[in-house]
């Protein structure tokens, strides 16, 4: 069985550190790839730009997506990712600070699988990440790999 990769799309280093700590605290030890903005995220997923040549048949098991990103924002990334058959079925969890209804609605409309609001209280954050990891990485059966 191959290792399940988690793709964390997050511009804030603080949030990155906190997210990684939360994953670690929950004993989620999967490899985490961190990208800083929407462009980089798409490059990674589609094997373009700085990730030119990456084997795109191997896609992250879980994509954690922040909405507020430099260059290309989270919703746009989600839209493009769903439009490409390689990533159309990958589980995407929106992990964001925003509690705007509009954001939540747009995310689900564009095909997000979950929407988690980052609480300020870190204890709650750890708890939330724990639940998420357990569900998406352990319980959930991912889509069958067609082009493998």
């Amino acid at each position, binding site marked *: 069985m191959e290792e399940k990769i988690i793709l964390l799309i997050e511009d*804030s280093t*603080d*949030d990155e*550190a*906190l997210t990684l*700590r939360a994953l670690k605290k929950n004993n989620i030890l999967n490899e985490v790839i961190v990208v800083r903005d929407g462009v980089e995220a798409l490059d990674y997923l589609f094997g373009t730009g700085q990730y030119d040549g990456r084997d795109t048949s191997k896609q992250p098991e879980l994509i954690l997506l922040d909405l*507020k990103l430099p260059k290309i924002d989270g919703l746009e990334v989600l839209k493009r990712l769903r439009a490409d058959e390689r990533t159309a079925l990958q589980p995407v969890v929106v992990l*964001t*600070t*925003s*509690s*705007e209804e509009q954001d939540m609605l747009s995310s689900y409309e564009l095909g997000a699988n979950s929407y988690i609001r*980052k*609480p*300020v*209280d*870190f*204890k709650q*954050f750890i708890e939330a990440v724990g639940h998420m990891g357990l569900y998406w990485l352990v319980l959930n059966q991912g889509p069958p790999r067609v082009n493998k």
Partner: protein
Amino acid sequence: MEPAGFKRRFLLFILLTWNLPPLIGFGFIMLFGVLTTQQIIEILTMPVEPIYILGWQVFIIWFFPKKLRPLTDWLKTRGATDSSLVLSAIRQFPLWYWGLFLLYQSLAVISVVAAAVLHTDFVITPLILFRFALVALIVSIIVGLPIFFLIMDLFGKAMGGLVVKRPIVTIRTKVFLIGALIPLLIDSMLVQYYWTRTGYFTTETFVVWLMLELLAIGGSLIFMRSFGQSLAPLQTVLNHTEDLSTMDFSLLQSKSTDELGVISGSYQRLLDMQRYSNMELSKSKAEFEAVFNSISDGVIYSDIERKIILVNPAITEMFGYSAQELKGKVTAKLYADTKDHEDREKLRFRSDAEDSQTLYEMQYRRKDQSCFFGKTYETKVTDSNRNVIGLLEIIRDITQKKQTEETLHRFQQRLGLHFMQTPLGVIEWDLDFNVVDWNPAIEKIFGYSKQAAIGRHASFIIPNAAKEHVNSLWNDLIKNTGGFHSTNENLTKSGVIIHCRWHNTPLVDGTGKVIGVTSLVEDITETLKVEEELKEHQEKLEELVEDRTAKLKTVNKELEAFSYSVSHDLRAPLRAIDGFSLALLEDYGEKLDDEGRDYLHRVRNGAGRMALLIDDLLQLSRISRGRLMRGQVNISKIARDIINNLNEQEPGRKVQFDIATGMRTNGDQHLLVILMDNLLTNAWKYTRKRSSAKVTVGKIVRAGKTIFYVEDNGAGFDMQYAGKLFGAFQRLHSDEEFEGTGIGLATVQRIVHRHGGAVWAEAEVDHGATFYFSLESAMAFTGNTSQVTDKVGKITTN
């Protein structure tokens, strides 16, 4: 006739009938020498004859009054008893009278003969017996006949007023009796006289006497027949007494040339005339009634005392009285003012013939006391001697006409006033488009005085450019087919062109023919100018509004972007602060002393409070944005859900909730949940220090508006700070006492304001607080505590 007088006279006649024959009979016997005086005295002194005579006297005195009792009774009761008994008694009387009288006479002969044979030496021969019989016959005629007629006449007199339909003793009977009996009397007297003088009486004498008698009877019968013929026409009347009106009068035609013939002829003509005049009378009566009853004007016929004799149906309808109610009443009853009646009375006595007919208007009064004006035509009715015998009044109700006249008058006055006072110009035109009338307002508009304008053709106020337009209008107007409204240019006296609005109405006569035109004129030059200016201003204003709206939209967008950033960018650092503080505590906690750890806890608390503050602020800003989704909202259910939540979060708290059921209102469900959550959370929070906390949610209705309230018995607050209550970040308690962001009530107020309603509070330190809100518009009592107190008294919870 007095019954006593009648009885006395009747008895006198009867006694005469029975007493005269013996006197006269014996007188004749002595005169004819049938018996000697000696013999007569002997007969009369013997008991047979006096007993016979006296016996009859007693009998008749008892018998006849008894037979005639019905007649005397009838007289006594003045005709009240049965008249048929009276008639039958009278009818039977002649039978009894003659029967008894002739019996008396016949027996008298026998009694005299018997007395003579028994008491004297007198020898009776058949001749002597015959002579006695003749004497009795003579006496019977001499006494019986006149007295009989006297008695019948007495009956006739006594029976005045009694209807006798059939004659009791006919004239023919009387004629026969006189015609037959008088010769018999004369002949018998002659026979007796001749016999006495000559002592000679043979069979021949007797036969001659008998022949004469038969001739007399025969002649009497012929005479009677002739008499009967004369009477025949009158006899037919007897047979038709029941229905004289239907009798054929030709039967009355005279059949004789005597007086009776003449009388019956006259009688026939009289009856004919009467019948004709009767027919004429009933005809004219019917005609009169038809006219009288069908006259739509009221007609009253009264006597000279003005007592009503006759009224027609129109009167009963006009006054509401029935004809019966009016009959015999004085006409004063019908006058509204009795003084009017008196005045009419005075006039009545001015009996000059010229005044026999008058016409006047009078106010009358109906039965229901309402009054009306009647035009009255009064005529004096006179008899053939020009004496006034009555008054005829013909009344026409002219109230309607009077009202119409008055209305017309008022209308004319009003119209005149309008014409003079209206700010609208009024022009009346004749059919040639010349001015007929010109009011003061139009003088002002065109500058021409009325004198200058009247009679001029319209062209003097029409500029050349408008002539064609106006002429076509005029042609439509006089055909009454159009041109009723127009706005066109006109020319004033000073040569200025003005704009006028015209409202034209063709004037038509009763047949619909146009006879002129009236125009109402409004000078709208100024108005048009103002309208133009207004339009310009409006355009500018619209531009301005558009501009401002655009700016506002931009600002709104910026604001949205700002709050979006706030939601993200302010929270991210907080998360870092909290997250790393916790990491520090977890990873390096043991390297710090208690104070150090406490500081880190404080850092985390600060971050937590800041996060809360940001969330509340976001909510507050979000409430102002977005559309209000109104619908039916169940306040009671929302309250119960929130309370369940609170109880779950802090299961240790014991708060008694009292929530009225079925509270509903119209509003945005989502916002009202936030509102109720804020109010109930506050109530929950501020009653924390109460041992028996109590929260009531209810509603009251005031001035038709529903007011909801949340009441607690918690910490309350000082009313002098009530004004600060709903401001953002305004707190009346310290954080140590009661934590909070100071945004909750600001949110509540904003939600209520977005619904167009009002919110206010009432409280007392340590005695709880009550928050009122209503989602219905314009609550005049916002913040008025005295009214609020009044309301609290009326709170009902169920």
